């Protein structure tokens, strides 16, 4: 936690902007620079900025999810969308697209859904690591973080 009024004001302003930018990055990513990985990093930047400015409790309030579970869900979701092509007799992860683009969102197909899984996976992993580091206490003082070192 960093006690600075400038940082806190900026962090409060940046949270919605960064989250919107993350979704923008996610959706433009198939043919242009961006994608699930970059989008996920931007979204976790938004959360980590709260962590730096307001501390871990405030950062946990941004998204009330279990980040490890979110990461696992992302992996599950990404791996899942490689499977539909198998039904059509194509190899795993062959792209399937809907014929007409949706206005405002663009073309939707299995790669977009795969990217969405990557997006969740990256948010989950990076935020979990940052939160664990921020909430770490000395191992001698606490025993609830795991089995104590003997």
């Amino acid at each position, binding site marked *: 936690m960093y006690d600075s009024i400038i940082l806190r004001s900026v962090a409060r302003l940046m949270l919605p902007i960064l989250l919107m930018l993350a979704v923008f990055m996610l959706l433009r990513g198939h043919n242009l620079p961006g994608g699930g990985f970059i989008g996920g990093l931007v979204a976790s930047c938004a959360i980590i900025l709260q962590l730096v400015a307001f501390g871990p409790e405030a950062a946990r309030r941004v998204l009330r999810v279990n980040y*490890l*579970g979110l*990461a*696992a*869900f992302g*992996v*599950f979701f990404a*791996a*899942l969308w*490689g*499977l539909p092509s*198998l039904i059509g*007799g*194509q*190899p*795993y*992860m*062959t*792209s399937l697209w809907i014929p007409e683009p949706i206005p405002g969102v663009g073309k939707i197909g299995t790669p977009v859904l795969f990217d969405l899984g990557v997006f969740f996976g990256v948010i989950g992993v990076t935020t979990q690591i940052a939160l664990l580091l921020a909430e770490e206490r000395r191992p001698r003082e606490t025993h609830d973080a*795991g*089995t*104590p*070192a*003997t």
Partner: protein
Amino acid sequence: MVNHLFLPLVVPLISAALSVMLGRWRLLTRTLTLGASLFNLGYSGWLLWLVSSAGRQVTQASAWAAPFGIALVADLLGAVMLFLAALLMFCTIIYSLLSMEPEYEQFFYYPLLLLLLLGVSGAFLTGDLFNLYVWFEVLLMSSFGLVTIGGSRAQLTGGLKYVALNLIGSTMFLIGSGLIYGLAGTLNMAHIGERLITQSEPGLTTVIATLFLFAFGSKAALAPLFFWLPESYHTPPPAVSAIFSALMTKVGVYALYRVFGTVLPGELVRLAPLILVLGGTTMVLGVFGALNQTEIRRVLSFTIISEIGFVAMGLGFASAAGLAAGLLFTAHMMIVKTALFFLAGAAEQVCGTGDMRRMGGLARREPALATLWFLAMIALAGIPPMSGFFGKLALLQAGVSQGHYLISGWAVLVSLFIFLAILKIWHEVFWKKPVEDLSQRPRLAPALLIPGALLVILSLVIGIGAGPVAELSTQAGTQILDLPGYIEATCGPAGCDAVTLRSH
């Protein structure tokens, strides 16, 4: 081209992710893990049958043609290893369900096992050198989680050595891959093999091959880079030791056989004397280490190193017969070593310690355990009718027929010492009178012996049915060295360069 080769990777991945998400419901997690490993076992058995009857199977991911996309190639070597990995993982999961303390499950024990299976299966199937590196990293990460699970000081020390050496090995692998990309302009293994036939630079190719020998040798625990193994194998729970002994070094062995046998056969011939010397050194250092230990699983860890020397010797013969014999021996060693680790874990549970000086009297107290241990022990020593005899026989036949008398004689001598080391366990743990009063300790649950018994029976079956098994391994050995066939399977009959030219 087929499109199902991704299934043994996708099923463990999805199951692992689901078990992390649903970790609260332990029964569900266990069922998922068991189900996924059972699926992999069934699938890889079927794939082995398919490959042995219909030849290599290839899947191009996302339907991108081979040198551009990522190809999965299953030939006999890969299919045999995939099958053994799935089988041993299945046995380990049963053993874990019976023996593992439930506290470990909150540290994601079962998902880590599935990710290990994912990494290993990916390494056995991939047809791309850089992907091989990625799969190595996947299995390294999950194995680091497994080796330190529980977090005792000895485990963290062993884990640190394990990770440090493996990272150095991985870096060498990466440097080698970069150099080969600079030389051949591709990372697809079939394509590399094809390009190096025409545009090989003798000096540079040898440097790359030596880097690969270092990288895979450190992962396979080849001398002098084996010291991480005995440090890290005996500290985690027995189920983890067993699966490590089954899979970790064997991925290194597989990579050596694949890269030197299929991709760089010219360099295999050039480096063969070095590989033979390293193999001979590994054999003797491993067995002397084993003779010197007093902890049961440490002795077993050192005998793994010694046997890796035998496998390297098979590679060093640089012939189809040598590779076939090495593969047969690897298969035998994976099965028997895992069984021995299971049984050692059971013996430790009875005695409450793994220190052989304080154990004893198990032959009278647990006759079933002692019988199984005896059978596994003679399998390891190479006495018929168990599988070890034929593995060693094939290796020695290959060596003698090519005139490698010195190393063959050396191997026979080392075999005697391996027998001595394992006999020491037999004497200390089973034969001698109990040192401590064991009458108060609970009896062994017979179910705990099932996975070990299964593997011992399998070893016996391989020993009795040695004919078909040896035939399969001979076929595999020929296939490893058949680079034109590998290129044709991956990129089509005209070769990989034809695919890249067509796209211009």
